[in-house]
């Protein structure tokens, strides 16, 4: 019974804070807070060598030719344009609201969850040369992505009355099938080949 009277000895915890502070300092110094952000792309796989290249699979009027030359000048279908107009031009080409025969045609497709939808067959062909600057190239990529993002947002607002980012997984799949990003890049002519 005498034991119960004894007080439990107190552990001096004043230094825990100091130790933890040292640890915090270590983590602060060694770590980087910067979020990696960027534009996602999927490269096309290299076709097997025995595969024949199908010719004329894509009709020329469905292709929007975007070219960035060595002086960083931008041209769309052989016409020089400003980068600020690229997004609008691309959107117009994909949507083709007046069914202009020189722009992309549409094909009816049955999409699960959305029924029959007219899908644009537009393909954007992005070309650059070796002396194009990376900054300009990424700006062009950015504008093309912006065009697709806006189209998707408009479609999901009219279809599901919500923004694309707030959609469920299945709804998002429907929208991405309707506006699939079809950006085709061919490497500059003189890209080095495998030795």
């Amino acid at each position: 019974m005498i034991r119960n009277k004894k007080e439990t000895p107190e552990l001096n915890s004043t230094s825990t804070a100091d130790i933890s502070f040292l640890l915090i300092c270590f983590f602060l110094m060694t770590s980087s807070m910067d979020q990696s952000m960027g534009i996602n792309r999927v490269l096309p796989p290299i076709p097997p060598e025995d595969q024949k290249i199908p010719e004329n699979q894509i009709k020329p009027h469905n292709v929007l030719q975007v070219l960035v030359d060595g002086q960083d000048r931008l041209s769309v279908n052989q016409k020089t344009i400003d980068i600020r107009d690229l997004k609008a031009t691309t959107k117009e080409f994909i949507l083709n609201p007046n069914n202009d025969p020189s722009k992309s045609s549409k094909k009816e497709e049955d999409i699960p969850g959305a029924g029959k939808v007219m899908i644009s067959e537009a393909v954007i062909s992005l070309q650059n040369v070796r002396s194009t600057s990376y900054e300009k190239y990424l700006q062009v990529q950015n504008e093309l992505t912006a065009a697709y993002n806006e189209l998707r947002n408009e479609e999901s607002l009219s279809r599901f009355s919500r923004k694309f980012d707030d959609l469920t997984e299945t709804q998002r799949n429907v929208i991405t099938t309707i506006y699939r990003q079809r950006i085709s890049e061919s490497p500059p002519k003189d890209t080095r080949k495998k030795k």
Partner: protein
Amino acid sequence: MAKFTGKKAKKLAKFNTASMGDIVFILLFFFMVTTTMRESEVKVKTDVPKASEVAKLERKDLTVYINIGPPIASEQARYGTDTRIQLNDAFKTVDDISHFIAAFREGLDEKDRPYMTTALKIDKDTKMGIVSDVKEELRRCQALKIMYNAIKAE
């Protein structure tokens, strides 16, 4: 003197610092969870371009980084100012990329391998020639998911 003794006898209220350790520990955990270790010493200047349509990198552990740009000032005496490719800690050439990617892929879980992403940190003044070479090499390595690093512009 006697007048003041009464006051002096009063003890200063003790500040209980026992919980301070806990609070600092919580802070510590916050930093440990939200941060990642700096991957490697950067030896090239990678001043990435600005872009408005950026997306966040989803799985940092499945990401392999390739830095392309001119060597930083302290390395220029040895390596010049020409655009270089940096893999891990050293300057490498386009030919080394396949080994680098293969080694990284080996270290991943089997089920995670298709989701491997290559983050390209490329200086904005780089010419597209070297970028195209790297992209072609990545296609050959079947590392098809890529991300062009960029800063979010408003």
